[in-house]
């Protein structure tokens, strides 16, 4: 049922040439995917998909849309070759799935080989109730550092291409969304709760779904809303853009620095056991620190990207 909805959404998104509708459909698509992940009991993944895919990406795409036209130009390309490529890829995927273990099969290799140790040993080795967090932050903590670097790289790439215009707050005094008193009051109240929730997600990642990635995105959302309602100038007064670059770098220093600290204590890079008086305590501290690093970098990069897009002038404003 969910998969059918997913397929229909994707098809409609391809057919429509109203880009605004397409962005909304992408949001729906991501949300459906999140529900699907939820259905597969992958709560952390679902949470990320909902926050990043359905949430912040939609906002970013909308702010990009503001810079271009709403309707897609008629395409002239011949669709045969792409269709062929997609067809072959799809066929290969189906072919590959023919011999795959049955859905939910407890004897599947993924459940038999590495998983038992993660499930049985991680509570005593790492001491974090949420196993997903122990795998992401400790067993495969190096991959997670890599992912944070990917996000940082994305931020740099946007800065290289667009840059952030500083000093010329061209939306000063003019509100992005009409002068609605109700909206302003509601948002002012809401922002406090969004931030509180982000902090909860940040520090509760050890116990339930959540962690630095999701928290960073949610925290950034609070600023994005403030920016949308109260204008760019006010938002930038709260969080100056030159601070965002420093924050993004600081998050990485915090993450990698935690790893380097364990190197100085005679252990391998990112071996948090070295950080505490006993290994489990060290793991706790290490995971807390690196999740904080992830959160700070993700927050700063998302906000940077948002500013880069929203700060650009529309073509009709240039003249």
């Amino acid at each position, binding site marked *: 049922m969910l998969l059918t909805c997913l397929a229909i959404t994707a098809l409609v998104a391809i057919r429509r040439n109203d880009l605004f509708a397409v962005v909304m459909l992408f949001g729906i698509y991501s949300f459906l995917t999140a529900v699907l992940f939820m259905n597969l009991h992958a709560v952390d993944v679902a949470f990320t998909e909902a926050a990043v895919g359905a949430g912040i990406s939609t906002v970013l795409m909308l702010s990009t849309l503001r810079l271009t036209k709403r309707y897609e130009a008629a395409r002239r390309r011949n669709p045969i070759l792409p269709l062929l490529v997609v067809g072959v890829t799809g066929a290969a995927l189906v072919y590959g799935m*023919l*011999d*795959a273990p049955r859905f939910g099969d407890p004897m*599947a290799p993924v459940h038999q080989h590495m998983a038992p140790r993660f499930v049985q040993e991680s509570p005593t080795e790492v001491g974090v109730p949420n196993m997903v967090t122990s795998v992401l932050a400790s067993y495969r903590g190096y991959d997670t550092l890599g992912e944070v670097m990917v996000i*940082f790289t994305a931020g740099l790439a946007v800065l290289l291409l667009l840059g952030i215009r500083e000093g010329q707050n061209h939306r000063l005094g003019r509100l992005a969304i009409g002068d609605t008193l109700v909206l302003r009051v509601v948002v002012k109240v809401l922002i406090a709760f969004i931030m509180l929730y982000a902090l909860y997600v940040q520090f509760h990642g050890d116990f339930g779904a959540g962690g630095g990635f999701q928290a960073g995105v949610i925290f950034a959302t609070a600023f994005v809303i403030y920016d949308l309602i109260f204008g760019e100038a006010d938002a930038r007064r709260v969080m100056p853009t030159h601070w965002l*670059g420093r924050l993004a770098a600081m998050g990485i220093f915090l993450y990698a620095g935690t790893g380097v600290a364990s190197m100085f204590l005679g*252990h391998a890079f990112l*071996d948090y056991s070295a950080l505490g008086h006993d290994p489990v305590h060290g793991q706790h501290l290490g995971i807390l620190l690196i999740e904080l690093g992830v959160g700070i970098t993700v927050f700063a990069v998302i906000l940077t990207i948002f500013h880069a897009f929203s700060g650009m002038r529309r073509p009709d404003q240039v003249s």
Partner: protein
Amino acid sequence: MSFSDHFPVLVVLIPLLAAPLASLFTKGRAAWALALAATWASFLISCLLLKQVLTTGTVRYYMGGWKPPWGIEYRVDVLGGFVLLIVTAIAALVLTFGRRSIKSDLPEGRRSIFYAAFLLCFTGLAGMTITGDAFNVFVFLEISSLSSYALISMGRDRRALNAAFQYLIMGSIGATFILIGIGFLYMMTGTLNMDDLAQRLPAVSDTNTIRAGFAFLTVGFGLKLALFPLHLWLPNAYAYAPSAVSAFLAATATKVAIYSLLRFLLGIFGFGFALGAMPFDMILIGLGLAAILSASLVAVFQKNVKRMLAYSSVAQVGYIALGIGLASQTGLSAAVLHLFNHAMMKGALFMALGAIAFRIGSSRIENLAGLGKRMPFTMAAIAIAGLSLIGIPGTAGFVSKWFLVLGTLEQGLWPLAALILFGSFLALIYVGRILEAAYFGTPKDGIEAREAPIGMLIPIWILVIANIYFGLHTDFSYGLAERAVADLLPAARATVDAAEVMP
């Protein structure tokens, strides 16, 4: 753990930490100095690391102290150490060369971020080279890809944006395919560690899932390494990128992708499955030949020398693919050797072209007329590296082509040997066109040219001299390549035997 135990992680960690630091500098020059220090430090450590590998065997490093398959492992064997040496050496040389070139290509406000992106690209490539974990390859591939799209888009020509976008689309498809392939392998084995995968794969290798995974991985890496006919993104990307970026990517990015493909083929799937059970060896030979002939032919007719060399790169990838397709000790060693030699020639050629573009602001062949007298050292560098590209005896290029031809003759494939020689003939024509213009053309009016600054000439000439040195002394380069392949093959043979024993 002592300091030297940390070498594997330090090679990657130093540029990884230097990148965010460099992005904070406001002065481009300071960011450059930091990037330069980081790449040279990485290079020195990779030299020590290779020495360590050669004396004590494969070096392993457990990230977070977790043993594989639960944790991520860095695993440096002779092949990995060798490729790491190439990547770090080229990064260090290109940055030494690049300050003035980048200064003329980019406005001051973007330079420090540019150096940060350069360091990230380097981090990604180095990480891909020595990791022993299949998923970690993907993560570092993403770091290097994303940053290289941004780096390419910084070219002076507006067309750079289009080239970068084209590469972004093709590269993302490649990365997605690689991810799907890794997913299929994980689904059937439950592990991501390369050694562990190699052990557990034979039991399930005769399934559709593994075959599909193999197909996705090879097509994905084929896109990243610009294997004919998946090379369409490369010529524009290299032609319009800033000079320093072209030099760095041409000498390292496709190399690391080829290396990763080799890792997956021989280190995970095993020789018997990848090049025996699948008709992949014949496909590689066919595509390799097509690349050599078609790309060399297209290169002959290019007017922009950077684009010409980019097409030549596609052809050189063809030689390497052909060597792998031969599926023999000699063929594979020749392929690995050509990886090393091609990095030296293209590094030198693209840097020398960068020096020319720095002086005359163009790399079109008609503007090169008469430069042989005005920029004698730069043109001499292009001449020698060009001869190496053709494969003239006494240069490094000759050695790898020699072993490649030997490899084909070993298997009695006379026509292949003849076609390789024909490819060299085509290279002679396009290199000849550059030299003809430079040495016999009459200088165009209005183009001022002086010899390139010494800071640019030194790194160029280091590579040029290396081209001659490794053309005369093959002990280090071919010896290492041979040893690296021999390390991969017996393990592969053992898995073949195991597969045959099982019904």
